[in-house]
């Protein structure tokens, strides 16, 4: 065995890798934002909507959670054009990631909603709140605080899972790495560095998510503050 590792060439292409990493971050945060909005809506309807709709949402969630993301991506990118729905690779990646995330997030948020004590909801009704008002003013904040760690882990999984969109050639970090290694024949070195970049992004995102939790839920606890005033 005579293989000499050469990381210099990876260093030369670092700007391209970072460019890919930046798309990974944009795709992940974009899919998080879109998926979160969808999931909030679905979680509300899943717990308070009409019965057939609840069943439909449950089926959607089970489908997303029991099929591979890669296959969902193939359906969006390769199958949908057959019925006239054609998308760019990056758009398809964003749509696929958003829908995938929404499936997991719906279930996570639902568990948070169900953990809100019933007495608080009844207090809302006795104040004459509508369902939507109760959701908005009584349920959302504590429910999201309860499930924040689970949502944060799911976000990291979303970002790591985004490497799979290279399979439909959306030019994020993994796809860029694939291209670079095939032209330089330094596969191991490139994948090693790209893996390191993913690890850095994971650590960075975890720190950021901690900071966001602190800013939203710890710094200002309206209820406790009102109580101890």
């Amino acid at each position, binding site marked *: *065995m005579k293989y000499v590792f050469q990381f210099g060439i990876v260093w030369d292409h670092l700007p391209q890798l970072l460019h890919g990493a930046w798309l990974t971050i944009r795709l992940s945060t974009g899919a998080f934002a879109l998926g979160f909005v969808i999931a909030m809506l679905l979680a509300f309807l899943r717990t308070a909507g009409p019965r057939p709709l609840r069943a439909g949402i449950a089926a959607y969630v089970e489908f997303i959670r029991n*099929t591979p993301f890669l*296959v969902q991506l*193939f359906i969006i990118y390769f199958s949908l054009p*057959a019925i006239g729905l054609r998308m760019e690779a990056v758009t398809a990646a964003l749509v696929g990631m958003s829908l995938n995330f929404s499936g997991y997030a719906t279930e996570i948020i639902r568990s948070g909603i169900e953990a809100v004590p019933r007495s608080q909801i009844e207090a809302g009704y006795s104040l004459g709140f509508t369902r939507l008002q109760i959701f908005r003013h009584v349920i959302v904040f504590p429910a999201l605080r309860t499930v924040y760690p689970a949502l944060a882990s799911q976000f990291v999984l979303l970002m*790591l899972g985004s490497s799979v969109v290279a399979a439909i050639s959306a030019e994020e970090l993994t796809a860029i790495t694939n291209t670079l290694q095939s032209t330089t024949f330094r*596969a191991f070195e490139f994948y090693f560095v790209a893996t390191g970049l*993913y*690890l850095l992004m994971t650590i960075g995102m975890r720190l950021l998510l901690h900071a966001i939790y602190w800013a939203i839920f710890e710094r200002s606890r309206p209820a406790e503050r009102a109580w101890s005033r």
Partner: protein
Amino acid sequence: MSRDFEWPEFLFLLGALRWTIVLSLIAFVGGGVGGLVLAIARTSSHAILRWLAATYIGVMQGTPVLMQLFLAYYGLAVLTGIRIDPWPAVTLAFTMYAAAFLGEIWRGAILAIPRQQWEAAAAIPLAPAAQLRYVILPQAFRIAIPPTVGFLVQLIKGTSIASIIGFVELTRAGQLIVNVTFQPMVVYPLIAVLYFALCWPISLAALRLERRIDAALGIKQHP
């Protein structure tokens, strides 16, 4: 002249589903052994062991499984000097991946056992290894069953990624069939249905086991 999607094509997909199952089971069993070692190391009293296991788990859970797959594939090629077939790389990568996740799940289960159980076992007196073997692990095992079964679903879905380096399991077989039939509208949804048929019963079983064990442990259920 393209082929239609008919029985032979469907049977080809079913045949490939077998490799999805085989790969998942190998990784699950191999990862189970590795995960047990990791969980014990992660909860041991030796700081270095704890740190090593934590680092391994942190790296594996902090990087994409696709990258781990590429590294295993090209890493083995570098070691052996030849471009190898995907089998060893795929089984190695998914086993290491499963070990990290199972190790973390089981660490949680071991930590969930009250400290008094260790103390009682020490008072009998059992040696530390025997405390773990006869008192802690049997109880931790019970708590760990539902998330372990749940992880199996994650693993089965994850093996679809092996298609990207050319390992012919269900997803790759679907791509091959699409290439000859030009019917992605039929094939990919069907692939999804096949995965669903495999994974959903396991998910339901995990949920059921969780409810039963929670009930046995007296944990209150939400409706």
